């Protein structure tokens, strides 16, 4: 016996109510729960409610309150969601790791790409020429070049529905967060260290931001690739 659309919807809502808000995490858990409930009903002769409670327990959630067992179905189903929360957190951690791995795996190839070499040469050329006349302006140019990919990343696919409540995309936004945090830190240190110096050596910061550009630029590339894959998956869900 297959579950009805209403029963599948109930399971989907149960997962949402228990904190599995990301659709890309939920799709796998929904399939698992539906398959398991169908199997239990067909082969073990249990009811829908009993089967669902058993699976809820299997995710590592409590289905009783202290020593009070045999609670109402709804109460038992929503009394605890620690297991599902833990699962989402672990998925988040693993997704970040996966994105990082992907970033580094594709990085050497990206550095050798014609498009990047061209972009990088233009930036170096402009910064170098401007630096000879006005070091501060050169720094601003390097800074803009570095932050532009980050700004693009924020606006890239911002109105796309697949981006909303997607753990994969949420973690993809953070790929370059370490480099951005580093840049903030360096600017802070630079400002406090050379606070009283009238002619600040902007060249250090300029070199740093030019060197940071390949990382930030590749982070945008990786983000775009993940976005395209995620959108395909979302279309499949809603097809």
């Amino acid at each position, binding site marked *: 016996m*297959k579950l009805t659309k209403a029963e*599948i919807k109930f399971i989907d809502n149960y997962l949402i109510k228990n904190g599995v808000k990301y659709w890309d995490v939920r*799709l*796998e*858990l*929904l*399939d*698992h729960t*539906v*398959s*398991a409930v169908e*199997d239990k009903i067909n082969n073990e002769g249990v009811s829908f409610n009993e089967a669902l409670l058993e*699976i809820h327990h*299997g*995710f*590592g959630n409590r289905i009783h309150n202290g020593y009070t067992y045999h609670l109402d179905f709804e109460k038992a189903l929503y009394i605890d969601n620690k*297991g599902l929360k*833990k*699962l989402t957190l*672990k*998925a988040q951690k*693993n*997704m970040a*790791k*996966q994105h990082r*791995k992907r970033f580094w795996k594709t990085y050497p190839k990206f550095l050798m790409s014609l498009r990047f070499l061209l972009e990088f040469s233009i930036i170096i050329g402009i910064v170098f020429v401007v630096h000879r006349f006005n070091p501060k302006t050169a720094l601003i140019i390097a800074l803009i070049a570095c932050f532009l990919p980050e700004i693009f990343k924020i606006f890239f696919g911002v109105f796309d529905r697949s981006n909303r409540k997607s753990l994969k995309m949420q973690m993809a936004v953070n790929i370059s967060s370490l480099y951005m945090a580093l840049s903030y830190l360096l600017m802070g240190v630079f400002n406090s260290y050379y606070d009283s110096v009238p002619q600040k050596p902007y060249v250090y910061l300029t070199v740093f931001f030019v060197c940071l550009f390949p990382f930030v630029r590749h982070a945008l590339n990786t983000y775009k690739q993940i976005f395209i894959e995620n959108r395909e*998956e979302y279309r*499949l*869900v809603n*097809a």
Partner: protein
Amino acid sequence: MSNSKLYKGSLNTIILKLLNENDKMYGYEITQKVKALTKGELNITEGALYPALHKLEAEGLLDVEVAKVDNRLRKYYKLTETGTKETVNKLNELAEYIKTMQALVKPKFA
């Protein structure tokens, strides 16, 4: 499962071994296969299976394929090239471990 702690460290190896024998599998299928192979002795819970699958995927040992089945999406896991190599290593490690444990629990007396 009689003692979950004893099996805990071998979960990744079990998953890799199953995927090595089957082209691709989805989460629930893995739990059922393990249950059938061990005649119900080993029951992998959902709370243990999915973090393990996600970890193996993040490490690049598993690849994911998504397909529409019964009007919902199903995630199939399959071994990557690195995953196939790692399965051999993990199985050797496990065999060594079992050998060591056997020597400890069933010592041969001269």
